[in-house]
């Protein structure tokens, strides 16, 4: 019965995309609900998948739910080849959840509703595909497929500087993709017989010469690093996040950034063990820079959304630090945890910012103050997510950061010790933000009209809050899901 489970996750949103194209343009509710249904079903399947994986496969490092390889473009040996393991299954579930919540969060879009939801579903297809593809060409196709709807989602429904942000995002990512394409070509032509099958390449690519490995690794790294984004490739992120509509920011932060780190875990690390070992310290250093730098820059932000955006840079730095510590399962598990928890927390923060923006029509931190008086639920949730973001125990952020620290300390003592500083800096900017928005004197004249969150809004962040706390309190199921895969990964890198 699992024969086509991954395909169904990938292509159900695409089907929804097609269905929406045939719906009447002015029937907003119909479009919204169709989009919700077509993202709800993949979400349910992805949840079932992670459950099933946990029950049945969590002890093995093999690819499961494999589809193919089916011949696709036989001239270049491109195949339709899908599969999932302990790395991709949690990310699939995360994607499913965030996509559904984002679509729910987009119900207040009134401009070009049909196109919006159509693009959104197309985007979901691309994201799901990236996490399932086991063929390089397929991977690349999904990677690019996701770009286009994202470009339009930012460029059409975005904020005042949307064109700039959209073009920047698109060009930047495309720039990276080209490096990836070069690396793919190198891999294709150096393999004998020529193949694009990732699983085969993981077996054969380490046989490449030292310099060629470094070359491919560096090229793929640029592509993934732009997506993560690693300092100094991060400047597209604040612009894109700030200008994008709320739901798109959620997807950007929650899923798209993960694709970079996922690519490293899935492709770069196992394929080029020698290069990984060679570049371990630079990667960790980049992580450290991102942590400290992102946090400091975030502290200087006046725009709430930009603050959250820069906090993403900082938080993804933990992933890079962990990736540098390739030899530790704990570090890699920490990286995975950080990916998931950052997706949940930052996604939620963006949703909350969106909720506030919908009401106040500004995101200027200095414009607010004392909202805690008027909006207790909103404040409570926002404080909760801020605390989760700054790594408070009991929430997923703490688990991931702690695991990253433990894992990478064995490889890099000084770098890790310095990275711990990030915890304080994060606390610094998060608390400043909370203080300036929610605490202090309440300006009744200006914000007296703000309404408390409505049921839809509470419902869309509640699952995120629940999962954040759940992972924070009881992380071991999630860690069991990825355990075997990561152990195998460490062995692959140690080759």
């Amino acid at each position: 019965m699992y024969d086509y489970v991954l395909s169904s996750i990938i292509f159900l949103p695409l089907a929804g995309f097609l269905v929406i194209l045939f719906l009447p343009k002015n029937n907003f509710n119909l479009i919204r609900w169709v989009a919700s249904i077509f993202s709800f079903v993949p979400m349910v399947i992805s949840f079932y998948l992670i459950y099933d994986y946990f029950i049945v496969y969590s002890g093995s490092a093999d690819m499961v739910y494999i589809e193919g390889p089916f011949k696709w473009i036989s001239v270049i040996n491109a195949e339709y080849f899908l599969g999932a393991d302990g790395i991709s299954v949690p990310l699939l579930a995360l994607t499913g959840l965030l996509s559904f919540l984002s679509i729910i969060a987009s119900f207040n879009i009134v401009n070009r509703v049909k196109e919006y939801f159509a693009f959104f579903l197309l985007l979901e297809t691309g994201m799901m595909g990236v996490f399932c593809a086991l063929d390089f060409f397929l991977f690349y196709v999904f990677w690019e497929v996701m770009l286009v709807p994202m470009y339009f989602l930012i460029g059409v429904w975005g904020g005042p500087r949307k064109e700039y942000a959209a073009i920047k995002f698109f060009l930047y990512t495309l720039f990276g993709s080209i490096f990836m394409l070069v690396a793919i070509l190198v891999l294709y032509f150096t393999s004998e017989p020529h193949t694009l099958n990732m699983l085969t390449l993981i077996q054969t690519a380490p046989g490449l010469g030292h310099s060629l490995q470094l070359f491919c690794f560096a090229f793929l790294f640029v592509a993934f690093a732009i997506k993560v984004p690693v300092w100094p490739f991060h400047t597209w992120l604040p612009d894109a996040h700030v200008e994008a509509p709320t739901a798109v920011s959620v997807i950007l932060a929650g899923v798209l950034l993960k694709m970079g780190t996922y690519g490293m875990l899935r492709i770069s690390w196992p394929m080029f063990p020698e290069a990984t070992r060679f570049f371990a310290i630079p990667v960790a250093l980049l992580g450290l820079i991102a942590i400290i730098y992102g946090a400091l820059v975030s502290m200087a932000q006046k725009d709430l959304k930009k603050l959250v955006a820069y906090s993403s840079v900082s938080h993804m730095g933990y992933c890079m630090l962990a990736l540098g510590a390739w030899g530790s399962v704990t570090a890699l598990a920490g990286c995975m945890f950080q990916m998931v928890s950052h997706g949940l927390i930052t996604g939620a923060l963006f949703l909350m910012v969106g909720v506030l923006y919908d009401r106040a029509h500004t995101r200027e931190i200095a414009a607010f103050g004392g909202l805690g008086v008027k909006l207790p639920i909103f404040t409570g949730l926002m404080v909760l997510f801020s605390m989760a973001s700054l790594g408070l125990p009991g929430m997923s952020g703490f688990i991931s950061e702690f695991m990253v620290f433990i894992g990478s300390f064995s490889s890099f003592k000084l770098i890790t010790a310095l990275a711990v500083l990030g915890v304080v800096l994060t606390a610094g900017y998060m608390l400043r933000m909370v203080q300036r928005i929610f605490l202090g004197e309440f300006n009744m004249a200006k914000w007296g009209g703000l309404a408390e969150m409505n049921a839809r809004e509470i419902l869309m962040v509640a699952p995120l809050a629940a999962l954040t706390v759940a992972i924070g309190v009881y992380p071991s199921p999630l860690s069991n899901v990825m355990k075997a895969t990561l152990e195998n990964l460490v062995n692959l890198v140690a080759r």
Partner: protein
Amino acid sequence: MLEYAYLIPLYPLLAFVLIIFFTRWKERLSSAIAILLVLLAFVHSVFVLVAMLGRHGAPVELSTPFIDHLIIKLELGMWIDALTAVMLLVVTIVSSCVQIYSLGYMHNDPRWSRYFAYLSLFTFSMLGLVIANNFFMIFIFWELVGLTSYLLIGFWFEKKTASDAGKKAFITTRIGDLGFIVGILILTFYVGTLNYQEIFEKVTSGTLSGGILAAAGIFIFCGAIGKSAQFPLHVWLPDAMEGPTPVSALIHAATMVAAGVYLVARAMTLFAGSATASMVVAVIGLITSFLAASIALTQNDIKRILAYSTVSQLGYMIMALGLYGVDYAHGHHSAGYVAGTFHLMTHAFFKALLFLGAGSVIHAVHTNDINDMGGLSRKMKTTTITFFIASLSIAGIFPLSGFWSKDEIVASTAGHPVFMVVTLLIAFMTAFYMFRLCFLTFTGEPRDKERFEHAHESPKSMTGPLTVLAFLSVFAGWVGLPWLHRGFSSFVYHDQVHHAGPHYILMIISTMVAVSGIGLAYTIYYKKVISADALARRFKVLYKLSFNKWYFDEIYDAIIIRPILGSTRVLWWFDANVVDGLVNLIGWLTVKWADLKMWFDRYIIDGTVNGLGYLCMAGSWMVKFIQSGSVQFYTLVVIGGAIGAVLYRVTEVGFYFYLIGLIIVALLSLLVKMTRPDRVGTEPNIEG
């Protein structure tokens, strides 16, 4: 009961969950739930203590894995020994008292339910911290305690100072936690476990020693520095007094700030293994204690005086524990460990009492400034009596509980002359500032008549806890009477029982010191024989230093906060202009390059194509005149051509000659056609 001790923290957690999710709107019910469950925890703690007494302190451990596939095992568990049992009791007693007290103090607060929820969450965190059996778990609760402290300090968040203080507290303690994390990381890496007992076994067996042990100890002590407000991170605690007074009593006097001391006591084996680490601990404790006491001498805010007093007393405990570690590392036992933990317990009671008393006073006069008080003893009998009891206790007057614990601390400095002298000096200062506070607040003439008129004794819900705590302040110390052979020291101990026995000389000295301190305060502030102002003028520099808290806030602001905020702005500028500027520059250059290409494309490449087109058009424009529509012209051309052909055949002159000739003819004819004025009315006039 003992094996279910892990339930103790869960009672208040249950209260928190119930209040937040279900009874937030029913205020009375919320507070009832909170108090009921904390009392339940108290009762359970009593049972645990009794059970522990029955086992003579033999520890109980229970644990469950948290994440188990890591390079180390992270687990959640409980470790109950004598220290834990005592702490559980102290925390639950103080917490219960404070929550009951809050019923009166917080009445009519708009966020009543939330207040009790936070208190419950705090109690949960604190109990979890106490009960933890490993460093990972203690760190978790350590942070949660920090969170609740943040929430409660900033409870009246409309006040800027309150929200600032909350933020300051959280961040400052978190700076200490950085060290704590690094310490934990060191332990993970070099020991491979975070479980107390496993680590301590490694230490006692000598597997872990030397520099790494010292580093681990010092880094872990950083956590204690932050949480227990030790120098140089003590600055947050006085500010934390912006929170509601019961909160100050519970968190910032009796329990949370004691967590640092508890941590040091709990990890005593680590410190005891390294004389360096222990010495650092002791010195930090001494500096803090002296610094805080010196600042407390001149403050005017009743709660701040108590806060500095707290810092000072915590320094005492830390110092005692540190000295114990030093002694132990050098191979001989001292009373330090018992002194520290004993003082931790007694201090909790009398400091909570002091704060609650101060709260009662504030509740009555609605001000924190002792210059606006005076003569309150006439209006607030219970408060005055309990406050004096607590003050006597903290000053170390026989036979109150503070006397016994402070005596032990003084005793533990035996063998360290510098420490002993400074300790006695601090004891003197403590007695002085406490009674300065008492005399200024409760005796003399009211300095603010209006406030005095409105002052009244607090309700029963507030005086009740005061009485209970006063009782404890008097008698709690008696469990550690030096003459008792099965007292506190034989219950809570490190490694082996060390029964010091009474030091009569020290007792006399310390009592004399305390009495002289009280006497000085009496002469200055009660009898007013010596003018306080004159003294202040006399020792102007010292007075200013003390009054301005040694300028720590200013120094930190100048050397840490401003540079960081400045660097954030610089980095933000850097990010927006240099990093992003680079990206935009590349984009701009690309666009310019594209413009150049476009220009080239438009004018050169396309220009060539278009030029050809224009050429063709021009040519055809000329040639089109051949198509004149004039039949005669066509005829001319035909005939001319025919003749040309004939001539060519006939004369056999070169083909090109004729071609050229023909072209000349054609051009001539064109010329004719083109020069011809178009005198044609072209529209056909079709009729009919």
